[in-house]
């Protein structure tokens, strides 16, 4: 039973049909993880009891498997009356899981900003919020563009986890074809190539953005 190219090509439309689900899950998880991660880092930086709590939360998230989070959100929350769709749980799970990592990335990006920047902002009477928005965040983004991009690609590659919740993303769809036809090589290869293409495109996009961010300070 060799690799049948014609069969492989015949699976492409079905698998590509799931690309929308994969992309939506990726983009929303990226946004969710970034917003949550930045919020966590800001609260952790603020110190105090809440800061400490968030610090533990970040460590806790990073020390648990992403599958555990997905199962937990999908199967345990309903016991407490919280019923969410599979896609919602998937996006929520990936956002939470990666927020822990992104909080660490943002921390490094902020730590790398010279102290004098905050002092200059204070001396100019900028509020704490304005300092974050206009002084810290833009410089942080420049510092973290490369590692942030890596994590965004990671999130893309983590979307097949959602298959366990029967979210029809690309790898799940490929596996469905495989189970129906008992031919695994072709659909899985097609899904793999599509993921590769998406990942390369994302990396390329991230690199372009990174270059533009870096150029802004060095022109």
């Amino acid at each position, binding site marked *: 039973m060799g690799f049948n190219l014609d069969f492989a090509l015949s699976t492409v439309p079905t698998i590509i049909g799931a690309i929308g689900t994969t992309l939506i899950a990726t983009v929303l998880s990226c946004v969710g993880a970034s917003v949550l991660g930045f919020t966590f880092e800001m609260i952790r930086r603020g110190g105090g009891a809440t800061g400490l709590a968030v610090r533990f939360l970040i460590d806790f998230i990073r020390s648990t498997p992403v599958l555990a989070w997905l199962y937990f959100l999908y199967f345990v929350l309903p016991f407490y009356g919280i019923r969410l769709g599979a896609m919602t749980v998937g996006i929520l799970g990936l956002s939470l899981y990666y927020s822990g990592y992104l909080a660490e990335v943002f921390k490094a990006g902020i730590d790398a900003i010279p102290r*004098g920047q905050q*002092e*200059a902002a204070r001396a100019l*009477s900028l509020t704490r919020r304005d300092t974050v928005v206009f002084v810290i965040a833009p410089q942080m983004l420049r510092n973290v563009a490369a590692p942030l991009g890596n994590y965004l690609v990671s999130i893309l590659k983590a979307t097949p986890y959602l298959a366990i919740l029967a979210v029809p993303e690309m790898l799940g769809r490929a596996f469905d074809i495989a189970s129906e036809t008992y031919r695994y090589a072709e659909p899985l290869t097609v899904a793999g190539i599509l993921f590769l293409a998406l990942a390369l495109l994302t990396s390329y996009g991230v690199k372009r953005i990174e270059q533009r961010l870096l150029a*802004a300070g060095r*022109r």
Partner: protein
Amino acid sequence: MLTQAPHPVPAVQSIPHVRIEGLNKWFGALHVLKNIDLSVGAGARIVVCGPSGSGKSTLIRCINGLEPFQKGTIQFEAATLDKDGRDTSKARRQTGMVFQSFNLFPHLTVLANCTLALRRVLLKPAREAEEIAMRHLTAVHIPEKAQAYPAQLSGGQQQRVAIARALCLNPRIMLFDEPTSALDPEMIKEVLDVMIALAGSGVTMVCVTHEMGFAREVADEIVFMDEGRIVEHASSRDFFSRAAHPRARLFLDTILSN
């Protein structure tokens, strides 16, 4: 006939812009500022000098609330700084600060560096903020770099932009923390020239510097610090001709012989 004994009236002695009383600061166990008393009159030009580690930078950073302190008060016309620092933002609004390392925002153009606080703190509309910023950039002779980024400028140019940025908020008192110490020698003059012009325009300034030529030319008062104390506070002329404290004499001899 003389009915009143003539008494010397210092050239500048109106209501003080800032009055520092009994200021004490510790870094942990280290007592870095010891009972500092200092009045900065309107239009005064005070140079603070002294050996490194004498507390001069810390003093100037206390004045705009960048450093908290444990004892004493710093009184502004409408705000008083003390150990609780409640009035910090009010006090800070009255001061402009120029740092040794410029601290321009690298991701913003020169113009945006200057307009940021105008827009966000003074809530000026964009047009007006830009006009004010351009006026100050022109005053420091660098209007043509308005659209440049800090990394494209020399150190001297960056420091002049930093001065313009601080002036934009129209502070009552300008604080300089060793503004030329991070500069190559050939750039020191362009920054000092701007500061001299600034002094000529009547801006109140307190300047920590080792530039004794500048001090002699511009300052009307010299404060000499050693080990956290003000050990000499005299008019510029008196300081250079007959500083009394041995530590100040030694400092002058070392600096002026170079």
